[in-house]
């Protein structure tokens, strides 16, 4: 059941031989993208979240073959030339990382959120609702919400 998929991972085109039974998270991790964590394996914890054509999906519950032709973004691709992305920097500034296992997935959902809502005034409730697909057992989420707010602030209309 071997097939070939071609996609873009963090702006680099790749072509991989995969078994159709493999999840996207397995394929990404096998190819060195180990920021993608497998936590629960059932779509509850969000540690494996990646952006697929700009949309967050749980890569552990997603067949790798479905990613054929897609543009994939993982947490390791977000920093450029040693400089953290604005979301990653905001996580650092707000102490949003403790044990760090949930962080790569959460960073991707925050990235999607910030890019989607840029220029809008968003509520804390909206931030919570759109990050609800992640479980973090350390922070209590407050510092994560603050990091997202920090990213949104400079772009709010009228600022």
């Amino acid at each position: 059941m071997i097939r070939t998929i071609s996609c873009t991972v963090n702006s680099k085109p790749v072509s991989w031989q995969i078994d159709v039974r493999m999840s996207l998270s397995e394929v990404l991790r096998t190819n060195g993208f180990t920021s993608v964590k497998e936590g629960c394996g059932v779509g509850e914890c969000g540690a494996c979240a990646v952006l697929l054509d700009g949309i967050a999906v749980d890569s552990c519950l997603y067949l790798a073959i479905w990613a054929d032709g897609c543009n994939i973004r993982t947490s390791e691709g977000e920093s450029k030339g040693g400089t953290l992305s604005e979301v990653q920097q905001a996580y650092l500034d707000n102490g949003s990382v403790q044990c760090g296992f949930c962080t790569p997935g959460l960073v991707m959902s925050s990235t999607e959120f910030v890019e989607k809502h840029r220029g809008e005034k968003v509520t804390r409730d909206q931030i919570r609702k759109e990050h609800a697909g992640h479980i973090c057992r350390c922070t209590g989420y407050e510092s994560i919400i603050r990091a997202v707010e920090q990213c949104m602030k400079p772009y709010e209309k009228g600022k």
Partner: protein
Amino acid sequence: MFDFNSYHKAKSVDEAIALLSQNPEAIPLAGGTDVLVRLHGHNKNYRHLVDIHDVAELKKVTMESDGTIVIGSGMTFTGLAHSPVVCENIPVLNEGGSSIGGPQVRNVATVGGNICNGAPSGDSASPLLVLNATVELKGPDGIRRLPLYDFYQGPGQVDRKAGEIMTCLRVAADDYRGWSAHYYKYAMRGAMDIATIGCGAACKVVDGKIAGLRLGFVVAGPTPLRCWRTEEKTIGMQADEELIDIVKNSVLGDLRPRDSWRAAKDFREQIIKTLAERVLREAIKRNIRNTEME
């Protein structure tokens, strides 16, 4: 690696039907958020998959000339939330859909999957029941349609015959025009949770009287249920406190909640009565407001 024996990817509904007909044991795979969870180990019921993930004809919502809304079974819950046809005409479907799992699940999980899994807790089931939705299936012998209520046969069991694909869910104009509806999911967490009880209500109030009323519950029986006897009692009644009281005290007669590790039966009964009152009150309020605006 997921554990299955054979895999075929369909590019169209007809190809999926042909593939499913060749292998009666094959299971359609759409969003995968239920099916793939069951494939972490050997599962004798899921050895063969027909992948309908990328069948484009299942991924659209349209309105026919007579006002019938046709919801493709492959629509994701995020897709439904962005569909103008759904948002403007049957927003109650998104009240249910947006309560499913979390964002990443809703980005891939499909409404057809939520129904075809036959879960007694499917959050889209209650809104679709109070919209009187019809299921459309296509198989080797052609197309057939049946009420969603009859499609459910038992826990995890639906009337999808070998070789059939659920192509769409249909909501007729008379079942949503002039109606207002509301769905509320009672669960322990605000996200990533299965409903303890889910309650949907739809109503049509004409000159202060109930011209139509529907109640649909999930996790209140072996399948999602309508409250037929209660609904019938209310026709022609004034939309007032007495009506709310009658509904509240009658709904349990139409439902069969049970004890499970997630909640006790008597607790579920309490929630059912409370939600029947609250959800119906909101649906009536919306209907009166919508009628005044017209």
